[in-house]
């Protein structure tokens, strides 16, 4: 999916922005999402340092990258992306090369983040930085703060129970790396989030810690306003379309939870089956040692069972490493979406409360006061963002699950194919006529 072009024009209710095509409409791309991003090799153009001073499409202020209330910023966003083909990507991010760092105070893993981009926001066409998990965590928090109306992709779980899981084992690190890669790719694919300042810094800064310290003091305008909103306002009723989304997410999360439990149970049963197989195979070997003519056939069966055992182990490892984490990620994702829905409710509640307050004042006002209008804008933008994100999320979810489930089927097919090969290969051995002893 490309980094930006808006498609479709959703109607977000009767208000002043109706005539404006909304840049955040979900672009339901048919391409498979996820996996490695292949950088387009010929979009490398050097940007002069001066570009940064030009009017940027997502608002002028560094902190106000996603000020939805500004209609001009919306227009700008639309104009920039107008002439780019939907299929062309201009930002590619990859997470790889995990390395362990041992320091006096702690041991931790860093990952290499490689960025290739032709966007003006990036001074260089290519960047390579090292980041650790807490940097990702910081990024996510910053995104949530600065883009409260948007759904931020989930991170893999922060804490792992020491002793149960080895934080430095290859499998764990690889699983985490994949999840972090997915996280950044999802942001990359988002038309608004990918232009976020913090995201840019995360991808490019040599010293992220310095920036972090600096950022602590600032509060985004929008962040402030959202914080101001939370608490105190109770929503009377959720509009139907958002209620439907809420219901869907609830059921979806439930079903995923069930699938997660089933998958875990299957893996558990398969492991127990494996344990028995590992005892079963060798008994044929023991028997083989007693026999003369039957010795080779029995040994053959023993080896065959051994091969099947190995194939089964590969299957359970794959399912544990590839299937379960993605499932859990989507549960987190839907939880994220639910909390965004709640924030939206808050914004709507504030607007309605203020509107009511104005109505009650019975003053003859020629127009609605500015702050109530601002509230309305906020709400309507929030609604638009959320709906757009939801559509995008639905589309991605469909592709992700198609891929995930096909992958699960594939792994099982491969397992059976390995076993089939093993058994078919010993048939000739079993049928062989032995020479006279």
């Amino acid at each position: 999916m490309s980094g930006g072009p808006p498609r479709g024009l959703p109607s977000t209710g009767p208000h002043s922005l109706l005539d404006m095509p909304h840049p955040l409409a979900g672009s339901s791309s048919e391409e498979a999402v996820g996996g490695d991003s292949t950088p387009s090799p010929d979009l490398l153009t050097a940007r002069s340092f001066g570009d940064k001073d030009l009017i940027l499409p997502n608002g002028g202020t560094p902190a106000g990258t996603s000020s939805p209330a500004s209609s001009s910023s919306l227009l700008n966003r639309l104009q920039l992306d107008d002439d780019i083909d939907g299929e062309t990507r201009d930002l590619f991010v990859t997470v790889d090369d995990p390395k362990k760092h041992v320091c006096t105070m702690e041991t931790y893993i860093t990952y290499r983040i490689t960025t290739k981009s032709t966007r003006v926001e990036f001074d260089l066409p290519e960047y390579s930085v090292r980041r650790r998990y807490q940097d990702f965590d910081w990024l996510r928090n910053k995104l949530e703060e600065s883009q409260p109306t948007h759904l931020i992709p989930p991170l893999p779980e922060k804490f792992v129970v020491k002793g149960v899981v080895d934080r430095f084992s290859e499998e764990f690190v690889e699983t985490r790396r994949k999840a972090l890669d997915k996280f950044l790719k999802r942001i990359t694919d988002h038309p608004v989030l990918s232009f976020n300042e913090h995201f840019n810094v995360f991808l490019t800064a040599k010293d992220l810690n310095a920036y972090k310290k600096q950022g602590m003091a600032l509060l985004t305008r929008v962040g402030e306003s959202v914080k101001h909103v939370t608490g105190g306002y109770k929503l009377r009723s959720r509009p139907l379309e958002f209620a439907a989304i809420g219901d869907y997410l609830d059921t979806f999360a439930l079903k995923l939870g069930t699938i997660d439990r089933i998958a875990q149970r299957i893996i558990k049963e398969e492991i127990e089956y494996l344990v028995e197989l590992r005892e079963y195979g060798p008994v044929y070997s023991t028997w083989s040692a007693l026999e003369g003519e039957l010795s080779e056939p029995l040994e053959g069966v023993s080896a065959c069972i051994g091969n099947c055992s190995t194939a089964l182990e590969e299957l359970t490892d794959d399912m544990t490493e590839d299937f379960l984490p993605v499932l859990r990620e989507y549960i987190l994702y839907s939880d994220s979406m639910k909390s965004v829905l709640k924030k939206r409710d808050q914004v709507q509640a504030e607007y309605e409360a203020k509107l009511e307050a104005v109505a009650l004042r019975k003053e003859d006002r020629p127009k609605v006061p500015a702050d109530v209008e601002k509230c309305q804008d906020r709400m309507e933008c929030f609604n638009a963002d959320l709906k757009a994100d939801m559509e995008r999320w639905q589309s991605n979810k469909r592709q992700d699950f198609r891929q995930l489930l096909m992958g699960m089927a594939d792994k099982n097919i491969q397992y059976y194919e390995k076993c089939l090969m093993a058994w078919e290969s010993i048939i000739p051995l079993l049928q062989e006529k032995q020479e006279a002893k």
Partner: protein
Amino acid sequence: MEQAPPDAPRQLQPAPLEPLGLPDAGLQAAAGEEEEGAREEGPADGTMTENNFWLKKIEISVSEAEKRTGRNAMNMQETYTAYLIETRSVDHTDGQSVLTDSLWRRYSEFELLRNYLLVYYPHVVVPPLPEKRAEFVWHKLSADNMDPDFVERRRIGLENFLLRVASHPILCRDKIFYLFLTQEGNWKETVNETGFQLKADSRLKALNATFRVKNPDKRFTELKHYSDELQSVISHLLRVRARVADRLYGVYKVHGNYGRVFSEWSAIEKEMGDGLQSAGHHMDVYASSIDDILEDEEHYADQLKEYLFYAEALRAVCRKHELMQYDLEMAAQDLASKKQQCEELATGTVRTFSLKGMTTKLFGQETPEQREARIKVLEEQINEGEQQLKSKNLEGREFVKNAWADIERFKEQKNHDLKEALISYAVMQISMCKKGIQVWTNAKECFSKM
């Protein structure tokens, strides 16, 4: 054929053909006129003709099982299963079979037949019966003797037993076996009349011989070790296989849960719904496929069990050899000591300790007449002893020869049967893998349409 010389009553003889009338008459009655034709065929060797005669002409099947109630020996009501045994004679010209005999037997009668065969053919590795009680069961299988699946497998096992006996070159000619197939009423009495229970070697005697025998044939000692180890390894195999079956069952059945959850999930999805729903259906198919797979595997387990029990039959032959060898050694020892005693009495020297010698010392010498009398008795005993030793030796050698011939036959059979069993097991696994590939390919197809 392999029959012991028909002399001393102490000798065990295969009772069949002598005390119970002409065997040929019985066979003729069953086979009818086809018998003439069969007799004219085949090699001049009487044995082989008659052997082939059985196999060609007779088809045996245990075709049905039926639950019955009756009163047992203690006049208490009991439920048991009866099995229908049908014997057909086959017309060798057109392959048509005619039902000649049909009767019902219960498991205990099979046991009686087998015990009889064990006593009268100690040099034969007697085919085993299917297990009395279900063992090595994995949880889904019932351990109940009345369970229809168990009864069915037992029916097959009993049929297999009869076929094994009928195809054994020696056992097939046994009259009691023939009557088992043809004479429903009174058969039990007939068997008991042979007095075979009395002729059976006592367990204690056999155990004693096993420990005390000095010079058993080395081959039998090795065979005994082999059958012990075979028993151990097959038991282990069957136990683990049952656990493997259990676990495999669990794996397949849990997949059935996907069916339900995919169905529920599809209800809230728009485009993904159909794909999920149909994939769920395939998961259900997958989950239910394990029942047939494991049912088939039970046949493999039964084949292994047969050889597990065959190991016991092998051991029985070894035990018999040890018993005979021990008997021989004891007889030789006894003879040697008598000879020595005789010599001592004759020469007046006492070389060995004897109670008589002791008492003689204490209470005075015996008279020359007394001594003569004793020498005479001893000489008679020695004579008898030498005769017995000679025939025991002969018997022993005959036994070893015949037993070893049957053991060789058994080894061939075992190697062949177990190879076949392994092949059919591999074929089962292949079929299971192919089914698995099919189901998951179908599911993948559905997922791709999501």
